[in-house]
């Protein structure tokens, strides 16, 4: 927290360097043509308001000062004037038409998602984002990577506090990327200010948006629609790369995905499953069931010491694969791959005193999903 004198310093420095600091007080100009157009509209309408405000408040404060009762002002009796009234109805209409024309053009352009070079499916989930590169066999989830200790103030907050993820969305610059957006549970909203893309993700429906980024860089945003308890903790990070670099990244991801797919058929040792399971648990499950499996009843049941979970392997697998209808537990059938499901189920069955000794093999999970 800042001290008062630091505050004064901030204010004066911002005032003197308002250009340099503009982005922290104002809408970012952004890195797409759309974001620049929107910024232009924003500044235009802002200055229109400023001019109208100066005139209206100017007349008002002049009157308040000039026609004070205490200075013996005598009130006039006029109470209507048709031509003035017509004039101040007509002028605002003209100003509004003047604003509507560029706004319409910008909006039309924003709605034209045709002829995209790359399609990405964005799925909102309580409380993470899933990105699927359509036609490329690449899909992964992106989770908040800010630690619990930072949130609780037990360790220093880093520069990108609450705006950092384990796996960013990687996009090429100079290519038109179409987003298809939906949700697995409640309504979320995918927003990156510097890309000027904000679109609700709605369960059961697919929304469309697009972006063409002009400059490489890392752009951060957040979920903008209240989506439950961790709404404030599902950031978005976009890593925009040069096209060649993006192609390399794409190839590496594909190879990694193939490796993982081959892993389904082999037998996994419990240590391997536990290690992988802990990673998956901490990134996916712990936001509800908590770090030590203690849960947050009644919405999020405890997993540590959960009798039904310990005794019924089949029930446990079914819950993770198919979710619980009408409750917060999503189906992970399409979100996690068989290796991840097998690992996390094995992990929860053997961590925090749940000493079942069970291992679940990826092949078993794949079979269950196929049924």
């Amino acid at each position, binding site marked *: 927290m800042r001290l008062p004198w630091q505050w004064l310093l901030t204010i004066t420095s911002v005032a003197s360097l308002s250009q340099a600091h503009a982005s922290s007080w104002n809408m970012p100009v952004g890195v797409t043509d759309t974001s620049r157009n929107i910024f232009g509209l924003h500044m235009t309408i802002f200055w229109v308001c400023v001019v109208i405000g100066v005139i209206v408040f100017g007349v008002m404060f002049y009157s308040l000062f000039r026609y004070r009762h*205490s200075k013996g002002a005598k009130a006039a009796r006029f*109470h209507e004037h048709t031509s003035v009234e017509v004039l101040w109805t007509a002028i605002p209409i003209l100003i509004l038409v003047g604003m509507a024309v560029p706004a319409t053009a910008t*909006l039309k352009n924003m709605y034209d998602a045709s002829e995209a070079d790359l399609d990405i499916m964005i799925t909102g989930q309580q409380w993470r984002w899933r990105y699927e590169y359509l036609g490329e066999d690449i899909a992964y989830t992106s989770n908040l990577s800010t630690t619990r200790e930072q949130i609780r103030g037990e360790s220093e907050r880093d520069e990108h506090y609450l705006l950092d993820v384990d796996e960013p969305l990687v996009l090429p610059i100079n290519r038109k990327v179409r987003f298809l957006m939906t949700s697995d549970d409640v309504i979320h909203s995918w927003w990156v200010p510097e890309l000027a893309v904000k679109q609700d993700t*709605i369960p059961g429906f697919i929304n469309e948006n697009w972006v063409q980024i002009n400059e490489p860089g890392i752009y951060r945003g957040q979920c903008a629609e209240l989506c439950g308890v961790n709404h*404030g903790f599902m950031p978005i990070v976009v890593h925009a790369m040069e096209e060649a670099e993006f192609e390399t990244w794409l190839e590496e991801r594909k190879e990694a995905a193939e490796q993982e797919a081959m892993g389904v058929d082999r037998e996994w040792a419990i240590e391997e499953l536990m290690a992988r399971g802990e990673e998956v648990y901490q990134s996916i499950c712990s936001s509800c069931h908590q770090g030590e499996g203690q849960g947050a009843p009644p919405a999020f049941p405890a997993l540590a010491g959960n009798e039904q979970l310990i005794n019924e392997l089949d029930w446990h697998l079914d819950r993770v694969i198919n979710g619980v209808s009408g409750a917060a537990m999503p189906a992970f059938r399409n979100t996690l791959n068989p290796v991840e499901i097998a690992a996390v189920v094995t992990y929860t069955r053997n961590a925090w005193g749940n000493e079942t000794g069970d291992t679940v093999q990826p092949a078993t999970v794949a079979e269950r999903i196929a049924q």
Partner: protein
Amino acid sequence: MAPKLPPQHSLQHSSSAVAGGQSQEGQSHYPHAAQPKGLMRWLLTTNHKEIGSLYLIFSLTMFFVGGIFALVVRAELFQPGLQLVEPEFFNQMTTMHGLIMVFAAVMPAFTGLANWMIPLQIGAPDMALPRLNNFSFWLLPVAFTLLLSTLFMPGGGPNFGWTFYAPLSTTYAPASTTFFILALHMAGISSILGAINIIATILNMRAPGMRMMDMPLFVWTWLITAFLLIAVMPVLAGVITMMLMDINFGTSFFDAAGGGDPVLFQHLFWFFGHPEVYIMILPAFGIVSAIIPTFARKPLFGYASMVYATGAIALLSFLVWAHHMFIVGLPLTAELFFMYSTMLIAVPTGVKVFNWVTTLFRGSISFEPPMLFALAFVVLFTIGGFSGLMLAIAPADFQYHDTYFVVAHFHYVLVPGAIFAIMAGVYYWLPKWTGHYPNERLAQCHFWCSIIGVNLTFFPMHFAGLAGMPRRIPDYALQFADFNLLSSIGAFFFGASQLLFVLVVVLCVRGGQKAPAKAWEGAVDLEWSVPSPAPLHTFETPPVFHRAQSHD
């Protein structure tokens, strides 16, 4: 249609009709000899002034309850990190703050003012339907006790925002949501009954000779507001009933998995919600249109255009709802339609602001507390209007939407808008209600503290929103820290200064400088023809309305 008065009345006083219409004997003769005392008096009262007071006291109480919720939110947002409350409780606080302020503070305050002042301003002896009036008030404490009790239920109270979007408020809602629905149903019935009563009173009980276009603007704006209430409250009732069915009876109105549509919820909610916004501001326009001419000692400029502008705003309010939904994925044509219709609202709203300013021009202006609040209303409401115009630009809304810029916008129109107008009205009519002027120095202190507090709280939110801070988050990235620090300091300052308001009101009820019937030099409307304090029963014989008091 004349109201049915106790027969002995009209006999006794038919000859004593004076402009003020006040029977000389006061109230001692009134036939209700065995009036209940104590609590029963207030439970059973059918008197518009007593019911008006009940509404106002209820509203003030809820203003503090909702205010404390807001301070919990602001305390958690004082600095980054989670310190005081868990996100789950934080969400309940933001939700309850919104619900309480909208449905239990602002709306009942306007209904209370309507109860007190509409009969006095049109020369009627009471509201048209006094027993209904009693019922519509007493629904409120029941409704909001029930709503507040959900905070103590297992799973907690509503945590899905005051806009309660499905499916967060249905499939994923806490168990207490059914109680929330019942509470909202009761509040809605109360509003509808109140609106029916106001319409019946205004249309049937005006003093002989008072035409519609002679009515004070507070009466006009409330008449239009009442029609809005009757039009949209059933839509709210419908949408929460559909939620009730989805939650408890297995329907799928808002569940895509069952063939429903979550966006349908938003269309229905905002078809209620946007007119609701004007329900909370039109009566404020009426109050300000009474106060500014009084203290400028000059007739209101453009009375007729004020009436037409209010009507135009009310009609347009039914055509703009989807500007709350610019980013849900509406088709382009819908975006364009709602963008244009929303921009159009700036025209009649602008007319009103220009009229107020022109009323001031070449007036003879003094700055009593009601005037201070009314002037602050004009300036700060207009600032809220400017940000509203910015939000209307659909492409720009893709950046503004669901950020603190929106929070700043609607707090500017609701706090220094609706709430300042209510306070202006209270200061304006307190001499009529209590027979005493409010303490000038304390009231001025309250004004200046409120002005500083409100701007310190809400102005930085514009910047936080533009810089990218989403709404309804319990913790935020470090670049928003300075704005939030300022807002939190402002909020606590603003909250504390409202205790001064209570002090002024209490002192004014107990004593103070005596006020004559016409408490303000420039006041013209009928309420200033009855004594101060207004006796329990006024205008038992209709006054004769003089055209000279008229507005044109």
